[in-house]
């Protein structure tokens, strides 16, 4: 009985924190339509700021002052700034950009926090509120801190209810949810409302962060991940309902507590660390998607470059030659980083058909790479290349298996389900492979009979050739029927279905293909590094490679093989640049996140955009001369595909908002006012 009561108290205490965090997510999502992936990171940064203000080891302000400054000055200011600088640009962005920019913010905030409060040097902790004081209830000791948590959650619930239903601004917030345009017509400023919502959402995140920090160590990734549990909770209410989110919080709080208490009698894959990921995955499948329609809601206007075969082949030859030369020029850490980057490029290449061509957003490429590495460790750690066949087959099977329940998901929901899968791999799969969990799984280099890739040079060439072969395959796919089908599916699933395309089969195929490519990258990385472990394949922990790899690939241009190369190499080389030029160290740490954020301005990838601008400037200097077909021009074209032609959408204002077909009006009047198009 006591046991049950203490489970209840502990479970509900966690639930209260999740509820506060989730309510912040719901407030921002409902008013701006953007899911704040960075919510956990805002909570984490706010906890650090609170520590900085209040700790006797830092500035030592009184606790109430520190609380007020963090909750009512810092966090709202941060939220308002995020809305002002980033989120307002995303209203008309494609689904992918709306997902990737907040992830960039998440990564950037974690990285900024590591720069300001270096994890190694700082052993900070936030004390419990009223530490040491407790009451006893039915034989169960309840700490004052837990009471504070309960009180805070109840206050937030009542406060939000009054705000949303009893005040003018609350009504305005709910109006903006229903229709931004109509709210604006009725004198509500949608921008002011969304700024306020982000300020409020970030304050709630900060409150959750401050409440949870004393229970954990003050650590950038741990704190962030804990608040990420709120994803599952908020999803119970379809990101819209606060009461349902509270129900979700209670379910998660209690089931995590139960999982940690009855650890022994549960299967290995159900632990308090995996429960949030499992819950998120299940909730995504059970809760109906917001617009469960086959029609697209926000058209994706990204372009898929189509370089000529000559360009691609020339680029590939150049790459292999570079791989032959690099080991003669570099050695040690730098050479290691190049090989690591090449393997990561193969992993990133898995996103090109899946996300670039087909528009299916996956945040789990590195998790599939990890599965590939585990399979390779089991059957091919002696360097037997036949194990690669097993890697491809098993990863493809796992990819299809993960895709199967996720088939009806798209956009944000699909991204979150792959996020849950990656988290599950990190917490349940990799830790259960003994040496792998220790980062001590050793691999020999591949050999086939008398041929062996023992030297660094030969293995680097092997990695590069693998990338080149896969890149050529992906290019062939792009130019063939399947490439057309994948793009067609991205542009209009409804039209595809009514043309006889089996969307289910196509999605399964592309998920399996993508997982197989990623797995191959992970398996080949083993031979290069010699030793691998969970840390190389995690979403967020350690050097947090998972999300930055996705970010940098999108920045590089996710619809081109060159984008994968840029993404993989950049992620591997940034730390090397930091090492070589200490003045740039902080910049290099923060760069992946900043690059992700930059997509708010350059949705087709900063690299593509920049090169296109430089190209246009050169054109102007040359006096509008057509581009010359030179070798360097081709190499440039390979690395950075041409900028897409801009086709602004028809804006629904005035007559068109009222449902009048402007094109018909145009045709009748002989004018072209309804159309706003720039032909290439």
């Amino acid at each position, binding site marked *: 009985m006591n046991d049950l009561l203490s489970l209840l108290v502990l479970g509900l205490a966690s639930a209260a924190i999740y509820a506060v965090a989730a309510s912040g997510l719901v407030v921002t999502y409902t008013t701006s339509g953007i899911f704040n992936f960075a919510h956990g990171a805002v909570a984490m940064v706010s906890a650090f700021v609170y520590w900085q203000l209040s700790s006797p080891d830092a500035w030592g302000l009184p606790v109430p002052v520190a609380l007020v400054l963090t909750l009512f000055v810092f966090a709202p200011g941060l939220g308002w700034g995020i809305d002002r600088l980033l989120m307002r640009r995303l209203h008309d962005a494609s689904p992918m950009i709306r997902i990737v920019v907040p992830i960039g913010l998440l990564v950037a905030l974690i990285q900024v926090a590591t720069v300001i409060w270096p994890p190694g040097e700082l052993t900070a902790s936030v004390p419990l509120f009223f530490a040491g004081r407790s009451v006893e209830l039915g034989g169960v000791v309840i700490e004052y801190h837990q009471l504070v948590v309960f009180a805070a959650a109840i206050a937030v619930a009542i406060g939000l209810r009054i705000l949303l239903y009893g005040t003018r601004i609350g009504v305005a917030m709910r109006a903006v949810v229903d229709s931004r345009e109509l709210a604006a017509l009725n004198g509500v400023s949608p921008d002011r409302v969304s700024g306020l919502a982000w300020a409020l959402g970030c304050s709630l995140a900060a409150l959750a962060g401050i409440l949870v920090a004393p229970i954990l160590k003050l650590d950038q990734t741990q704190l962030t991940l804990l608040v990420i549990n709120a994803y599952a909770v908020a999803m119970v209410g379809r990101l819209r309902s606060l009461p349902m989110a509270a129900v979700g919080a209670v379910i998660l709080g209690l089931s995590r507590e139960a999982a940690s208490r009855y650890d022994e009698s549960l299967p290995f894959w159900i632990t308090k660390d995996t429960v949030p990921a499992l819950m998120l995955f299940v909730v995504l499948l059970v809760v109906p998607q917001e617009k469960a329609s086959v029609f697209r809601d926000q058209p994706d206007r990204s372009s898929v470059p189509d370089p000529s075969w000559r360009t691609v082949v020339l680029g590939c030859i150049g790459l292999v030659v570079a791989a032959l030369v690099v080991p003669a020029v570099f050695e040690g850490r730098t050479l290691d980083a190049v090989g690591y980057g090449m393997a990561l490029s193969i992993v990133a290449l898995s996103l090109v058909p899946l996300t670039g061509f087909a528009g299916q957003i996956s945040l789990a490429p590195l998790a599939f790479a990890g599965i590939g590495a585990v399979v390779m460790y089991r059957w091919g750690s002696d360097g037997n290349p036949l194990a690669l066949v097993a890697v491809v087959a098993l990863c493809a099977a796992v990819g299809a298996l993960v895709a199967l329940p996720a088939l009806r998901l798209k956009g944000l929901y699909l991204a979150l389900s792959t996020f849950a899968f990656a988290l599950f791999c990190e917490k349940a799969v990799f830790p259960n492979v003994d040496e792998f969990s220790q980062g001590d799984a050793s691999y020999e280099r591949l050999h086939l009979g008398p041929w062996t890739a023992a030297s660094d040079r030969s293995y680097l060439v092997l990695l590069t050739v693998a990338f080149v072969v896969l890149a050529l395959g992906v290019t062939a796919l792009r130019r063939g029927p399947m490439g*057309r089908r994948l793009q067609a599916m991205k542009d209009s699933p*409804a039209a595809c*279905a*009514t043309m*006889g395309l089996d969307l289910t089969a196509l999605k399964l195929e592309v998920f399996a293909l993508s997982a197989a490519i990623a797995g191959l990258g992970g398996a080949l990385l083993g031979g290069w590094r010699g030793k691998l472990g969970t840390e190389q394949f995690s979403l967020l922990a350690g050097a947090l490679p998972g999300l930055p790899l996705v970010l940098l690939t999108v920045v590089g241009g996710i619809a081109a093989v060159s984008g994968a190369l840029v993404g993989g190499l950049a992620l591997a080389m940034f730390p090397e640049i930091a090492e070589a030029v200490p003045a740039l160290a902080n910049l290099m740490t923060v760069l992946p996140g900043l690059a992700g954020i930059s997509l708010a301005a350059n949705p087709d990838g900063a690299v593509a955009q920049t090169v296109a601008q430089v190209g246009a400037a050169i054109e102007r200097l040359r006096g509008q001369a057509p581009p010359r077909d030179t070798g360097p021009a081709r190499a440039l074209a390979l690395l950075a595909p041409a900028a897409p032609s801009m*086709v602004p959408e028809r804006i629904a204002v005035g007559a068109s908002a009222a449902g009048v077909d402007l*094109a018909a009006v145009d045709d009748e009047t002989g004018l072209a006012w309804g159309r706003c198009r720039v032909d*290439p």
Partner: protein
Amino acid sequence: MSILETTEISVRFGGHMAVDGVSLRVPEGAITGLIGPNGAGKTTTFNVITGLQAPTRGKVHLAGKDVTRLSAHKRARAGVGRTFQRLELFGSLSVRDNVLTAVELNRVPGEDPRRAASSHLERVGLADLAGVRADTLSTGNARLLELARSLACRPRVLLLDEPASGLDDEETDRFADILGELAADGLAVLLVEHDVPLVMRLCHDITVLNFGRVLAQGSPSVIQADQQVIDAYLGQGTDVGAAR
């Protein structure tokens, strides 16, 4: 004989009956009209026939076979083709690749897909624009491309959702000619269109929907004389027959 038949199909969205017991017969070699005010349930009927929307009640038969539970892509392969009122082109693909994708999905052995795609584009008069990105087309051309793409699927029944909206007079005439040819070739066409004179000129048989229900069914002359249809949709004093 009717190649496509719907029996008492109904669709309920929450408390709203979008389509309420609609029965249609679409014969081969003829153009059947489906008209009615906005919100009458025309597009929802199309979605039910093509399998994008499951009906709450009722059945859809294609060539005598019950296809009500068949998925959209299987129905397409069985011969149901359509265009969309709100354009559903593959905007990032070229005009040629839009049609080529359709050809490849419905390929017959021995056919050269590129040549087949070109001939479909020539038929609708878009051959000159084959290389441009589909989302740069004008509305009129985009509608013609949707027509070419749906023809490339080798349909036995073609459902056209407001194909003439956004077309100028010349384009409308060419479009009417193409439709006439298709029907003469034996294709069954179901046409949703607000251009009433065009409907009266082309259609052999017309069904009028209002608030999800069938208001009237019959030949153009019967429909034009129907007082209920005049009240609900056509309006008084409309001499639609003489409009062209």
